[in-house]
């Protein structure tokens, strides 16, 4: 009973949150998850998972996630089971929805280890936008910069030299929903996916927050009025 009551409260909040936001736009760059009222753009995050799975997963793990967690992005249990079944774990078995994301074999590129991406958005100042800037920041090194071996130039990365190669390019993945897979689109989508993975409760938190603030603001008014009246009467 109670649980259903609260669930419907939450669901209502989520819908309101989604309705209130326009689609992500790349120019100017804006994510639906931005700001204190932001919520995860589930379609973008689903595409972002495709990018992660197709491009990043060979180097970066996400060990805080299970495949079943993807249901929160709007995938059906069958779709999730299908995704998991397509992953062959290190022990040779296929993954199940309850398996954690497959850990890639540890690669070390000149001593730099690809960080786990589960919470990367929370761990970098600039969050979602930094990830986007980082992924689109690769380019030729400016004159006068000599790159260390195995490093690429990246204007967004502190120091400018990163041991990760430029991995995104147009059509690096084929999107199931027909969105055009430009480099920028892929970067934005995987950034939204990583935003979700760093804070899977972002949408719920904001919905709960709005409700709680409205309720307690109302309660403050009632309580202050009550207090005033009682103090006026009883002196």
């Amino acid at each position: 009973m109670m649980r259903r009551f609260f669930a419907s409260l939450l669901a209502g909040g989520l819908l309101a949150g989604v309705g209130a936001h326009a689609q992500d736009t790349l120019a100017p760059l804006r994510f639906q998850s931005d700001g204190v009222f932001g919520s995860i753009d589930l379609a973008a995050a689903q595409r972002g998972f495709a990018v992660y799975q197709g491009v990043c997963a060979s180097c970066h793990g996400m060990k805080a996630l299970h495949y079943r967690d993807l249901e929160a992005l709007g995938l059906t249990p069958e779709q999730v089971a299908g995704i998991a079944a397509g992953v062959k774990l290190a022990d040779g078995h296929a993954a199940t929805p309850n398996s954690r994301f497959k850990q890639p074999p540890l690669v070390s590129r000149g001593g730099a280890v690809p960080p786990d991406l589960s919470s990367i958005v929370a761990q970098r100042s600039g969050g979602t936008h930094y990830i986007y800037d980082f992924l689109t920041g690769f380019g030729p090194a400016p004159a006068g910069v000599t790159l260390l071996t195995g490093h690429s130039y990246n204007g967004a990365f502190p120091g400018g030299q990163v041991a990760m190669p430029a991995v995104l390019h147009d059509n690096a993945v084929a999107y199931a929903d027909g969105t055009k897979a430009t480099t920028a689109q892929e970067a934005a989508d995987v950034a939204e996916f990583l935003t979700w993975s760093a804070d899977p409760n972002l949408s719920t938190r904001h919905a709960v927050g709005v409700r709680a603030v409205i309720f307690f603001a109302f309660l403050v008014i009632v309580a202050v009025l009550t207090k005033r009246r009682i103090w006026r009467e009883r002196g």
Partner: protein
Amino acid sequence: MRVEAKQGWLASRVPGFTCVRDMLCESRSPGAPWLATLPTLLAAMLVLLLASGVVLAPFYDPRHAYAALQTIMRDVPGGWLVLSYHQIGASLAFALLYLHLFRILLVRGYRAPAEFGWMLWVKLLVVLLLAGWMGFVLNGGVGGHSSLFNAVNAAMLLPGIPGAVAMWVFGGASGGATLARLLVFHALLALCAAWIILMAFAADKKARPVLQGPGVPFWPIYAAQYFAALSVLALVFAVLLGFVPHWGQGTQNTIPAATAVIPAAISYPWYLTPAAGLAGAFPGVAGHICAMILAAALLYALPWLDRSRGARHGRVYMALTWLLGVDVLMLGLVTAFPMGGVLPKLLGLWFYFHFLVLTPLVTMMEAA
């Protein structure tokens, strides 16, 4: 009838059992200010901290602290909410305690016969600071881990009995085994805090001046005021919870302690920064420790450092008290956003100078 008979039976056997009923019927002097509700709000936050702590404890694993927090936030139903209760509850508890202590300073509510109550509030501050630091460490993030690493290494350098006590607390190099101990101490300190605040309430009640005139009953007059104050607190809580859940918590604990990252400066939660700043006022490990002990001792001894008689508020001392507030605030800021130079040291030293020199001197002069 039955109920009353029962209460009589209990009251005759368990002293203090009727304190809630007594409080509701109690007559108080009319017109108490809003700020007088601070201790009650603080108590509410401590209750929330205890309740959420009890819920979090079974999911916590000192040997895999970071992973345990990830599990709480991701896999425990509503775990992220309970963790936020605990983190924001701690933040607000400190905010309320700092405000309350400052208010006592301003109204000079630490003087006899309220000095025992004041000492209890200072004790509560010490206990909460220790518990708060342990909570910061228990996160299993890089920030907490380096702080623990520093503390344990400092403790190992201590000679004699202090060193033995420190090692008895930490039990060796910082890691899972240390966190297992700190978890126990964290919980013990929480219980101590609950006990101290009850004592402080009792002491404050005893120290209240005898009623002149009829007074007003607690229920519903003051109950209405407390209720309104609590709802304001709940509103502030809701804003933090929904929109800035990590405000003032430091950012380094999002990175697991296992990664080979050693931060140049530890970003403490805001409520630990003044204490960290005070510790830094004296050089060396022994200096930091002595600084902390001295700071607590000075606050503790304030009722005797203040040499004034009567209720008159000296202007200069009042101004100095405000200055102290600003000083502590600034000290927190320069610790949170580290800067070079002598300013942090000066701000720290001012605190000791204020209590050790200015307070006795100025109050004595203004009393004359």
